[in-house]
Each structure stands twice: as structure tokens, then as C-alpha cells.
């Protein structure tokens, strides 16, 4: 038995079907939450934002034209909400979090290196990337979005998507090098 396609659920939601809304929420809310929490770095804020994302879906389902995947649409809304929330956040709070997020990864990784845990270091360095670089890496690797879909979600040309991904990976390599992992690239 195949699951009801997302596009069909959106059609039902446009007609006010709450059950379809529950199904769509159950299907996608965890991934949308993870995308948002990686951007805003605050679980409570991310929870509030995903409620707002799906409320927008409830309101705008009738306008969904199906030209892109429903998940692409969801992530576009989520990104817009997350960036708006970041803009509203007081500067001092942002600075604290940013500082926490981009702390020199050479502290913990050194300990981790002793344990020979390369995976943990890579993950630590992934969290140390800027929001722009985290976002593109997550969209490509975790949310499995194509070049075209990333371009649509982020609102940049396809060539810029490829370039931004290249620089995100380059920055990751630099962080890894600083943490003692030389990969021989770039």
C-alpha cells in the first residue's frame, strides 16, 4: 500500500481537511525542525517556528501549484521564518550564540583526536560553519535537495549553489585542518 502523495495531502488541506494536515505534519515536522534548529540554534524557537511553517501551509495550500516538491516548499517557508526570527533576535543574544557556535574547534577536537574519533571532529567542525554554509551542506546532504531545489529554497542561481557548496566544503576542510586533520584538499 502506497502512502498518499504529499501533493494530494496539500489538495485536501486546501479543502480544510485536518486529518491531511496531521498526516503532512507527522511526515515532515522532524526534518523541518532539524533544518530550522540548525539555523536558529534554539530548540524552543525552532518548535515555535515549525508551528508557524505548517500554519502557513494550512493557509496557503490552495495556492500551491505543484511546480516543486512539497518538501522544497516547506523548507522555503521554514528558511524564511528562521531568517526572520534571527533578524528579530536581540544582537547580544545573537553574538553569544554565534560566539558559541564558532568557537575554536581545536579545543574539543584535540581531546577527540586522542580518542582517534575522526567522525566526532568532522561533526564538531560541521557545527562550526557559518549559517550560510551549514544551510547548504544540510540541504544537499541531509535533505537530499538537487541543485535546482537548493536554488529555489535559498533564492540564488544554480551556479551560485555549486560555488557556495564548494566554499562551504573548503571552509570545513580549513576547520578540520585547524583541528589536526589534514585531508589534502583543497
Amino acid at each position, binding site marked *: *500500500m502506497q502512502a498518499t502523495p504529499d501533493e494530494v495531502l496539500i489538495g485536501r488541506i486546501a479543502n480544510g481537511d485536518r486529518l491531511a494536515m496531521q498526516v503532512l505534519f507527522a511526515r515532515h515536522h522532524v526534518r523541518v*525542525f532539524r533544518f530550522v534548529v540548525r539555523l536558529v540554534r534554539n530548540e524552543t524557537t525552532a518548535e515555535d517556528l515549525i508551528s508557524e511553517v505548517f500554519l502557513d501551509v494550512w493557509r496557503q495550500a490552495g495556492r500551491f501549484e505543484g511546480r516543486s516538491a512539497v518538501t522544497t516548499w516547506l523548507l522555503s517557508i521554514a528558511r524564511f521564518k528562521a531568517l526572520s526570527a534571527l533578524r528579530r533576535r536581540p544582537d547580544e543574544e545573537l553574538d553569544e550564540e554565534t560566539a558559541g557556535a564558532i568557537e575554536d574547534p581545536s579545543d574539543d577536537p584535540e581531546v577527540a583526536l586522542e580518542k582517534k574519533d575522526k567522525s566526532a571532529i568532522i561533526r564538531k567542525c560541521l557545527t562550526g560553519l557559518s549559517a550560510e554554509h551549514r544551510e547548504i551542506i544540510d540541504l*544537499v546532504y541531509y535533505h537530499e535537495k538537487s541543485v535546482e531545489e537548493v536554488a529555489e529554497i535559498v533564492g540564488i542561481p544554480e551556479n551560485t549553489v555549486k560555488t557556495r557548496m564548494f566554499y562551504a566544503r573548503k571552509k570545513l576542510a580549513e576547520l578540520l585542518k585547524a583541528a589536526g586533520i589534514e585531508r589534502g584538499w583543497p
Partner: protein
Amino acid sequence: MNVLNKEQERFDVEALLPWHAAGTLSRRDADRVEQALASDRELQRRYALVREEFAETIHLNESLGAPSPRAMEKLFAAIDAEEARAPRRRASFDLTGRLSEFISGFAPRTLAWSAAAAALAILVQAAVITTVVVKDPNGPAAIGLANKPSDGSFAMVRFAAQATAADITNFLGAHKASMVEGPKPGGLYKVKLTDSKLPADEVGKIIKQMQEESKIVSFIAVVQ
């Protein structure tokens, strides 16, 4: 291809490696990357780095956990509030949409088998109907349709919404009636009450009896 072009091609292919690892390239681009990987050991090494990042990004995201039920509660509270303020106008029952949705749930192979089965069923049905019409002198009347609708006494009937097909069949059988036309506008059916034309008072008696079965008949009137 000169050296400059080769370098550019390698750079272009390398830019696609993250999407190749995620399996989100078009067939054409995926083939292009595969071809380049097959003959370039340095590219293979870089692809291994991409796959490492890919795996750790998934690991990192999966460790982020999930939102609490509060997110869903907040969403549906907001939806309830919106609906209370301005109820959304629901579209009428969309049979075509439901049918499309039902069909879209099948795999292409299933659809192909269903179409073949449906075609066979139509052929068998046609054969059975032909046999009945040819062999049975009463023709379609035997299965509920009158053969000469112009003779006899008639009524227009609208069946109750809750009446099932079996109820209607039993009802017609009990009154020795048969359906000759319909549905017409308003959900009305023309029903043949008797084969010969009866006086008005006798037709009135039959109509009254039928009217008493209100679970099946919601409206009935004599047709002259």
C-alpha cells in the same frame, strides 16, 4: 581537449560530487561523474572525502532529536482559532479528485493489470448481456428494465438517500414494478407499475402503498 579544458571539466565534475553522493543528480550528470571517476584516481580520493562529510552530516542531523508535542498542539490550536474566526469554505465532494487520488496510489504495473482486467470484464459483461437478450424473450425486463415503456401505468419516483441498491431491487420486485428511465434531473426515475394501463383510482392505490415505504421512497407521483 587541451589542458585548460581538462582542468575546467574536472572542476565542473568535482562541483557535482556532493549531489552525486546524495543521488540527486540527473541521469546525464550522474553518468558524466561516473565516467570521470572511473579514470581519475585523485577524483576518487576527493569523492571519498565527500562521502565522509555526507555520512557525518546525516549523523549530526539525526542526533538533533525531534520537537516536543507542543509544536503540534500549538499548530492545531492556531488552526482551531482561525476556523472559529472565519470557517474555510470547503469544496463539494470531488469525485474526480478522489478517483485520481485512488488511481495514483497504484504502481504502473498494477494499473496495467487493472486496465487489462477491466477490459476483460467489459467483454464478458457484453457477452452475457447479448446472450440474455438473444435467449430470453422477456429481454431486459427480466433484469429490471421494461422493454416497452410506452405501454402500462407509470410513476416518477425519487428514492430515499439511505436506500441501497438491494433495497430498491427488493422494492421493485415486491410491487412487480420496473425502472424504465433515469436518473432524471432531481434524482427522479420513471417506474413502470403495470404492463397494462390501469384506471386512475387503482394506480392511486399502488402509489399510496409505495409511499408508505418511506425508508425507500422519498417522493412518488403518477405519470400520465
